[in-house]
């Protein structure tokens, strides 16, 4: 019995870890920095699918919602939207320079909830290797119907570049 359990463990742990590392995993979203897309109502957390496969070559697009390890605290994970890529010039909002030239291999990330988000405006451009991408998302109602858990957002379709990107992108 114990032997069988150990055998099952030996099989499932490496397979599970490999799946999480190469394909993706599900994560809970805390905080209000991505309102109104994620966590639109207080007291109700959204769940998202982190698509690791989509960022295997570190190819990002403006408007993607990404998850990353905080450049300041390596144990904290953040969810932000890609505003600018390498070579772009971005107007900032509270950073120490008003115009930032994004260096090679970096990107500019901001939360949708302007002013309530710890993002590139406080820590500057971020190295793209941190990033785990979301693909797409289905409406919440789809999963509230099926799973009947607290609201579950499953992101399966790349989010459209929203109005904020257009505002922020200069030159």
């Amino acid at each position, binding site marked *: 019995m114990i032997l069988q359990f150990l055998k099952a463990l030996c099989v499932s742990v*490496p*397979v599970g870890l*490999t799946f999480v590392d190469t394909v993706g995993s599900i994560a809970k979203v805390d905080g209000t920095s991505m309102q109104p897309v994620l966590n639109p109502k207080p007291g109700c957390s959204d769940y998202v699918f982190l698509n690791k496969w989509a960022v295997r070559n570190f190819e990002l697009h403006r408007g993607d919602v990404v998850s990353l390890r905080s450049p300041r605290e390596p144990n904290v994970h953040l969810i932000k939207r890609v505003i600018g890529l390498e070579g772009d010039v971005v107007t900032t909002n509270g950073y*120490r320079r008003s115009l930032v030239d994004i260096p090679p291999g970096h990107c500019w990330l901001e939360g949708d909830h302007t002013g309530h988000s710890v993002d590139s405006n406080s820590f500057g451009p971020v190295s793209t290797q941190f990033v785990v991408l979301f693909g797409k998302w289905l409406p919440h109602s789809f999963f509230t119907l099926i799973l009947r858990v607290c609201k579950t957002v499953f992101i399966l379709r790349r989010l459209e570049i929203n109005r904020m990107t257009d505002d922020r992108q200069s030159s």
Partner: protein
Amino acid sequence: MPFLKKLLKFGWYGCVAHCVFEYCGDFVLCDGPSMEPTIHTNDVVLTEHYTPLWRRPQQGDVVIVRSPRNPNQFICKRVVAVPGEKIPGQLKHLVKFVSSEKVPKGKVWLEGDNKSNSTDSKNYGPVPIGLIRGRAIATIWPPSAVQLLAPDLYAYDTNLKPR
């Protein structure tokens, strides 16, 4: 069916290999002059991946880091200063990266042992701890170069005095 069973077994081997290389350690072939005289071109280095997962990098560790400029490239450098410590060298060269003389939170200052020929934090500023992929323990190939990589910060640089 036996074919399918074999395929599944190979898949499992692949998963185990992935986990070992991702969470335990791996071998890295070093290239370039930046870590001479500690590590030479074409030396093979044994790394552990315990440091990025559970432990903070310490001063003097030789670490394998994803290059901040190019995420597909790995660099091998020595940790010279950890968060809160003073950055060695003159501040006037650093002013475009940091606002104070200290390494910011969550970042480390990396330099190659070959100070004159190394692209490191002097060029791209402090590097986030999250980019560290592993710590080099020892060089294992070629046989003449086998050695443990001790956190020996001052061995090759007389300008860098203990603070």
